């Protein structure tokens, strides 16, 4: 366990100093601060627009940060030869991969934590709506599980795919899993759909991760969604995320264990 923690800590230290990630975080924070100004541009309820916009910024920036952070993680270690000094020590490859992953989501957690603070300040202090602010934090919490899942997909793919391809592939999986999941799921369950299309829909809705289930807070995406038992829903979503992450990491470990570095 000690090597995993050591590698995770080093990964956090490096991630929070990566300029490209800090720039993304900076832009997201600025956008969060100017978000209230955009409410006046819409005819819809100012609060609804603001909520949707804030969650959208957090989700989009976190997704870009999660993908950028993880797709280069393993290739960089190989390119800089750091991996050799580490793997020549009593560190198993699965420990290395797990340490990198945990470090990545810890760094992501810190960055999302900062965005959560900004959101809380935004709604609690500026808008005087602490209730909404805390409600949004729950939404960001679900996004964190979503991003951890996304990072595990990127991490798994990074064990055998070049970073740039991985960036677009993971991004594509995220888009389909977020925006197209419900469509593919209903298509899969449609008895009148053509065989090939149904098989494709089954593949997408079964194999690809369901990122959409973590967007319950965003009324702009799911305006008509009604959750009967929110607690149970959240627990199920977290369990689904943890199981999927575990599968992705085990897959990544098995591939990485056999890979020549």
């Amino acid at each position, binding site marked *: 366990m000690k090597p995993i*923690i050591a590698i995770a800590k080093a990964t956090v230290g*490096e991630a929070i100093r990566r300029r490209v990630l800090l720039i993304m975080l900076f832009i997201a924070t600025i956008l969060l601060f100017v978000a209230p100004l955009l409410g006046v541009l819409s005819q819809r309820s100012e609060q609804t627009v603001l909520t949707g916009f804030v969650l959208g910024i957090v989700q989009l920036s976190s997704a870009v940060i999660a993908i950028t952070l993880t797709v280069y993680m393993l290739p960089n270690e190989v390119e800089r030869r750091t991996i050799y*000094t580490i*793997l*020549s020590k009593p560190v198993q490859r699965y420990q290395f991969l797990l340490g990198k992953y945990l470090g990545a989501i810890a760094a992501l957690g810190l960055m999302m934590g900062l965005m959560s603070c900004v959101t809380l300040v935004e709604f609690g202090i500026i808008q005087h709506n602490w209730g909404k602010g805390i409600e949004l934090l729950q939404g960001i919490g679900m996004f964190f599980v979503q991003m951890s899942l996304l990072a595990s997909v990127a991490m798994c793919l990074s064990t055998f795919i070049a970073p740039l391809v991985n960036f677009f592939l993971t991004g594509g999986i995220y888009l389909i899993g977020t925006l197209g999941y419900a469509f593919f799921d209903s298509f899969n369950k449609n008895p009148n759909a053509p065989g090939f299309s149904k098989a494709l829909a089954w593949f997408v809705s079964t194999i690809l991760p369901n990122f959409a289930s973590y967007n319950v807070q965003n009324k702009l995406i799911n305006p008509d969604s009604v959750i009967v038992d929110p607690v149970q829903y959240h627990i199920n979503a977290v369990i689904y995320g943890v199981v999927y992450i575990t599968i992705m990491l085990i897959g990544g470990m098995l591939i990485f264990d056999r890979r*020549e570095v």
Partner: protein
Amino acid sequence: MAAAIETKKLTKSYKSKAHGMVDVVSQLDLHVEEGEIFGFLGPNGAGKTTTIKMLLSIIEPSAGEGYVLGKELGDFDVHKIISYVPERPYYYEYMTGMEILKFYGSLFGITDTARMDMLLEKVNLHRDKTKTISQFSKGMQQRIGLAQALINDPKLLFLDEPTGGLDPIAHREIRDLILGFREEGRTVFISSHELSEVELICDRVAIINHGVIARQGKLTELLKGGRVELSVTGVQRGFFEAMKLNDSNIHETASGLLFDVPEEADINSIIDGVRAHKGAITGVVPRKKRLEDLFVETVNAKNQGDNRI
């Protein structure tokens, strides 16, 4: 003496689209004794780094077998008593020298900061222990690399180009540290292009070319075959020709003759002969065979398909 590294027909092959299966390292028989500094030489792409990766169990051999400190390749336990410093190593730049040692120490479960202080002092970085790696010069980075490699008190160190790209002062510092490792009883396996450096510090060397060991042995034995140049006046060319010495050359110079003979020739007899014929010896210059000569000769011979070596 026990072997620190022993390989038997160790081979690593990769699939190439153009050439099918290609042996990057082929039938490698390597023998490194405990407590020696072993130089592993070869041109770029000869298979040096692939060999090191196999010995470190970072990659698996395609065929053959190997033992590191008596344990078969792939035995995880051996990682506790070996260390590796790669060529141009990168360390997390935001960390200080002390933090680097703490990081690598934690991979072994080592938390002894007194030992870390001692190692920083050993590599002469104790005054810079609060500087981050990004503030380190190349030489300092190489020294912190050696310090991290010593964190587990290894019996065997693998150093890949330890002096590559360093200035003469840093060269000297690294060389002294490596020589110190031998005095401490550690085995050092050095992969290097710096032939003059290797010649100064290594006990034995192996030259690998196109994945095959071309030469291996004690440096003193491999470097036999130097020449001696005798500058002579007062005797004629025919005097030396009459000696019928194998592999000798006679050159005319402004002041007389230059007689170039193998170092194993009986120099005293030649000198006595010159004096007996009223000649004079004006100079005796031994031309030692250099590792660079051996290296070039070996690599060229192999490239030309000469398998006599």
